[in-house]
């Protein structure tokens, strides 16, 4: 089973107001709530539409899907993909796998924290970037590697941060 945003009528790039976003998520749920195991897909779609999954939205999903909130929250908190905090326009994942770690990933994280003025897990005040770390992303030959959204940046040094961020 797959859920597709395209099946739903929406003229406005996932809606712009909270109300529109909730309405769209509601439509998603109504279409799929009776299918077993659809909670994860609904949460994926909801995060796609709303950007993140705050408690209020989890309550909305729980009620609409007729599931306990503790179950919805259990799934949200289990998968690191889901975020309960507002996310920036772009997400930076610094790889902290073994290869990247030994080639200076920790220093890179500190430099990024310094540059962006936020700690790991936080969003910059202008909502442009979320800084996060990842376990091995499977690009050990490029260590230390950084992913910004879906782009992999190779052998990033603290001195190369500005150039990398400029692209976004």
């Amino acid at each position, binding site marked *: 089973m797959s859920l597709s945003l395209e099946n739903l009528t929406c003229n406005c790039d996932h809606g712009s107001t909270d109300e529109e976003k909730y309405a769209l998520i509601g439509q998603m749920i109504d279409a799929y709530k009776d299918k077993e195991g659809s909670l994860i897909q609904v949460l994926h779609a909801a995060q796609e539409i709303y950007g993140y999954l705050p*408690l209020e939205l*989890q*309550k909305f999903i729980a*009620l609409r899907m007729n599931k*306990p*909130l*503790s*179950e919805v*929250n*259990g799934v949200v*908190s*289990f*998968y690191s993909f889901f975020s*309960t905090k507002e996310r920036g326009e772009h997400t930076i994942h610094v790889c902290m796998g073994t290869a990247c770690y030994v080639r200076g990933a920790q220093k890179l994280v500190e430099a990024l924290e310094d540059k962006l003025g936020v700690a790991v897990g936080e969003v910059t005040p202008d909502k442009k970037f979320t800084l996060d770390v990842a376990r091995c992303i499977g690009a050990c030959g490029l260590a230390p590697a950084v992913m910004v959204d879906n782009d992999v940046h190779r052998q990033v040094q603290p001195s190369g941060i500005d150039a990398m961020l400029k692209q976004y």
Partner: protein
Amino acid sequence: MSMINLTINGIPCQTEKGTTILQAARNNGIHVPSLCHLKDIHKYGTCRICVVEQVGAKNLQASCMVEAQEGMEIYTHSERVRKARKTLYQLMISDHNKNCLSCLRNQDCELQALGRELAVQDDPYGNDEQPYQGVIDVSESITRDTTKCILCRRCVTVCNEIQSVSVLNAQNRGFDTKITPVTGLKLGDTNCSFCGQCVAVCPTGALSSTIHEDRVWKALESHKHVIVQTAPAVRVAIGECFGLEPGTIQTGRMVAALRQMGFYRVFDTNWAADLTIMEEGTEFLNRFATVLDGGEACLPMITSCSPGWVKFCENHFPEQLDHLSTCKSPHTMMGAVIKHYYAKKLGLNPEDMFVVSVMPCTAKKSEIARAEMQNDGLPNVDAVLTTRELGDMIRAHGINFLNLPEEEFDNPLGQSTGAADIFGTTGGVMEAALRTVYEIITGRELPFPNLHVSPIVGLEEIKEATIKLENVKPEWSSAEGFEVKIAVTSGLRGARKLMEQVEAGTSPYHFIEVMGCPGGCITGGGQPRTFHINETRKARMEAIYREDEGKPLRKSHENPDIKAFYEDCAGEPGGHWSHEYLHTHYVKRGLFNEMTDENFVVEKD
């Protein structure tokens, strides 16, 4: 039933097809240690302490999960098994809070007992620098301490599958996994019903009732007149705290112990149960008569003695609260009578009185914190002890319980009828009400052998009966031939089923009894813990019916002290005094408590 053959530790064994290896071993008298497994309740295979070696299988098997097969060759204590169990145990305690000496489950802890059994003598995986992490979350009823949680998930099973409340669940993953309400919420701020069934199954000190022992010790040492009352289900379970079999009736010794502890009066909540029948029976008759006369009244009427059930209804069915009887629960009625009637009789200032309820229940602890449970600025009840807490206090007082003489409750609030005794078991409140209501309408005794309404006696989740009213008294002529449909449920999953009918407008019933815990108060969240829940429940229930049958009076309206109370004070059931002191109203809360500002969070000291 077809049997299969297997050998366990070289001994030929037989077991019913379909049983697990663990059950097969135990049925054949072979002990296998286990931890998360709880017979009839929880089968999850999470702790893996019950692993056994199966000849021919590569890995050790969790015996609680694997079905016994014909020809299996099992070893339950081979060297490999013993080593694995020890390692599993050591991993489990590596991040466990080890303040065992000052833990309330000291010597009463399944984890501790298991360590002893496995002869574990070191803690190689413990981390001295960061020994454990977790939160302590105190609600009025239940205290959670996640530093003592071993993630067995028994509580998750009872909360979700048995009670359908679904507050507790596993959140986060890996080392960060916690059994908790939704991240960041405190139990007292959720839709928890406070039934305490999670507390009753917790193997460690992770879930406990919020202890009121200190409140009571302090009161006993103060100048106050400290009055205690005991619920019907306590007397058939308190003996278990002192090694007696479930279902041993210990009313007399319990009263003697309370007197030795220094309580000023020892009263019986059963007296107030008889009072409840007068009030609730009258309320039902009023609603019923209104409907018979073509008026509008809210039926089915649903009992309100169980505060866990009441809170569940307020959270999950906030628009159906008019169906609840407006009667307070018996112990809060008793508190109101003590402080606003009995005090005057004795010439005491009610502010100098302190009322303690000994209850099989954890929900009653948060019930007494509700704004509605006070009159004239005084709480009806000041402290609630669970049966387990009373057991602790008796021991701490140095009382040799088993050597006590049997004593009687004090009067006038100590005499009760058999109808009150059965309040402690599922079906009991309904039967007690019918013994009185039927007689009022027909002038005759309830037509069942020994006064037991047999269709509603027993431990099924939902029970129902139809009572046909015939040859009624002249003043009830409009009820002639009417078939009163009743239902009884215990456990909140059953309550949910009946309430879904009520909500949909399809409920066929006129009167419903709900008790929040499966089996009723006899296996409430405050009762002594047991590994044999079904057997214990049955034994306690039988004891409750024995206590009823042993009473000279079996119907609430025959209690002479109740009659005297109405003559002396309240006038008539449902009258002005009753409405002021014995009845209450309910709070719409909603699933996320979004309809109220009230919560039951107690900040940690």
